[in-house]
């Protein structure tokens, strides 16, 4: 089976220095990879390239062995296999939980269903199933997102990701603004979801949460510093990665 994601020699230019400088990375199905690095190291840029929103200036990206699709339709089929959990969640506040979950299906739905989703509850069983998988009450389906608590939102965003049925899971610092318990819960869920055929690439700030990952990738000033098994990571490598970075 082809790797889910292959980044080959990726460069992204920035204003003064490159945001990504000759970065190569590969993700096999079932792999859970943590992306570490100080602020401004290029983690978000790397994820934006990985989810197809940003085309690199140099280098090539392949998803499940395929380059970026040439037609709009092909690209959309590709995008729907890439799921992103955003740090700010990006739920649509004005819509209900169910409408938000169904929004993940817009890539495969046509206009009639997309419009109907704004009028009637559609595919309730499938929506309820993803909520239950994340220990959420299916009664939430009719609630507007703006009425949810912080923890509920996190889970609804994750449920939307499940509803999309992606293979490649990307997460941009999903734990940054969470309290320790919520962060541990969410991380456990994400790691559990990333079983084959899926894979997970997650950027984070906290080296204390690396236990469940197969590999750790270090990024500093747009360059890949290390890419190795989490168990073999030395404290000195971490110190070098963050050296001088936290000071303003």
């Amino acid at each position, binding site marked *: 089976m082809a790797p889910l994601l292959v980044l080959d020699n990726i460069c992204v230019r920035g204003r003064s220095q490159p945001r990504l400088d000759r970065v190569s990375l590969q993700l096999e199905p079932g792999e859970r990879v943590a992306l570490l690095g100080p602020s401004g190291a290029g983690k978000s840029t790397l994820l934006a390239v990985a*989810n*197809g*929103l940003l085309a690199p200036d140099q280098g090539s990206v392949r998803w499940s062995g395929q380059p970026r699709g040439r037609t*709009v339709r092909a*690209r*959309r*089929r*590709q*995008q*729907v296999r*890439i*799921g*992103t959990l*955003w740090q*700010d969640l*990006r*739920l*649509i*506040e*004005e*819509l*209900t939980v169910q*409408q938000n979950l169904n*929004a*993940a299906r*817009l*890539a*495969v739905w046509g*206009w009639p269903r*997309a*419009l109907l989703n*704004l*009028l*009637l509850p559609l595919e309730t069983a499938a929506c309820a199933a993803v909520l239950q998988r994340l220990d959420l009450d299916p009664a939430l389906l009719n609630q*507007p997102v*703006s*009425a949810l608590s912080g923890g509920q939102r996190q889970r609804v965003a994750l449920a939307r990701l499940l509803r*999309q049925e992606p293979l490649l899971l990307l997460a941009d610092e999903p734990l940054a603004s969470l309290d320790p318990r919520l962060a541990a819960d969410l991380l456990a869920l994400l790691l559990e979801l990333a079983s084959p055929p899926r894979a997970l690439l997650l950027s984070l700030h906290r080296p204390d949460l690396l236990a469940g990952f197969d590999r750790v990738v270090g990024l500093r000033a747009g360059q890949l510093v290390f890419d190795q098994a989490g168990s073999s990571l030395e404290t000195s490598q971490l110190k070098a990665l963050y050296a001088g970075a936290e000071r303003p």
Partner: protein
Amino acid sequence: MRPAAPLWVVLPALVLLPVLALLPGISHGGGWELVGEFAAAALQPSLDPLVVGSVLGGLGVTAGIALLGWAASLALGLVLGIASSRVVWHTCCGNAAPASWIRRLLALPRSIHELLWGLLLLQLVGLQPVVAVVAIAIPFGALVARVVSDLLDALPTANLEALRCGGVAGPAALVTALGPPLLPQVISYSGYRLECALRSATMLGVFGLGGLGTELRLTLQSLAFRELWTGLWLLLAVMLLLEALVGWLRRRWAMPARLGLDRRGVGRQGREILVASLVLLPSLGLVAWQLGIEPAGLLRWQGLPPLGPADWGAVLALPWASLVGSTLLLTLLAAALAVGLAPLMLLVAQPCRPLLALVQGLWALGRLWPPPLTALLLLFVLQPGLVTGALALGFHNLGILGRLLLEAAETSGAPQQQALLAAGAGPRLALLYGRFSSLARPYLAYGAYRSDVILRESVVVGLVGATGLGSQLLESLSSFAGDELLALVLVYAALTLLGEDLSDRARLWLLETPHGDGPPQEAGGPWR
């Protein structure tokens, strides 16, 4: 079944269905050739130096009238706005009641459209440039006054109370505590008013009050389309330049955007603002001198034709129900067309850059092209009446709403839209779900305000017999029926005030945050 937010935005477009169904019935098809000629002439405007010279002269007069009317309305509005602010009266006299009285008094000049002011003054003092300036200054001034007092009363008063507790005198405390937060909002709003003033000055010209509008109407009526387009292109250029300048200054001075979504304090641009105002004052004098404005001319009333004795029986016999009914129908139709079509067009055009540019061009044309002229153009192919008037008013307001929607779409909901795109949603669905969701309430709230403006504006399509109070008013005006005129103006004013109240309520309801996080947004604000 309850439509979700993004649908609210496009639902008003359903009004297209009855309008399209009615069109075959009211079209007479006689003038398609003329419309074709008109469209073709867009590409070959007359470049005859004589035509260009006369258009430039007309444009100068229109721009001068707009500038003077705008400046006068700002001065008037600021003074009256402060005088009708509750917090000012409360701080200075301990009693806020006079503020409400002044507010109520100001409702009357505000509710009468500048065209009516213009035509009334024209009857009294004859044709002179100062008429158009005053016609703009009166209703605009009253409107600015309302906005200023709304803004003042909505400002947080903690600083003011702190100063008062420290023994600072009322006026000094007001200036210190409320001046700085008020200034950027007023400047931002006044930029928008200048755009409105240019549109109004053009429109007044269509009714013979001088400037480019007069030439546009004459060239249209004499079917001199190439000369017409010379004027239109130049006017378009000036308007787009003005809009760009106002937008640029607003960004440069970090002024609140018109949507009020992005409010930052005023930056370190105070000096530039001061210099700009200092440059403005002498140039106003220069413009007034160039136009031959003579304020004293307002006092020299010309002899009116003898008014017959008032015949109130005849006034009562006017078909009031149908007049009021068709005015309201005209307003609703035009408002629904404008409010619903703008998002629909954006949805269709947004993913395709050239198409979006075309739509923006069409909107710009709609903004500057006075509705009575659109109506005259429509008369080539449609019969006069309510739908024709609604189409003309709708097209004009579509241009205004469209630009606002685009501005808003550029500042709100971007992350959600991006997330949907990343998950493979098409660009149009990403726009509908990702951006229109958060835009729905403020956009419709603005639509409610716009309907209230359209009601006031419905008088300007009275020219083409678009039924309703507007055409009756123009008729009474030209037949010197003073009693009818008085009754009609009062009914119009009452209707406008009622509409204003309704639209205020609609806006409050729309802007209320549904789940109680945060206070409801302010209903008026910099939107007007």
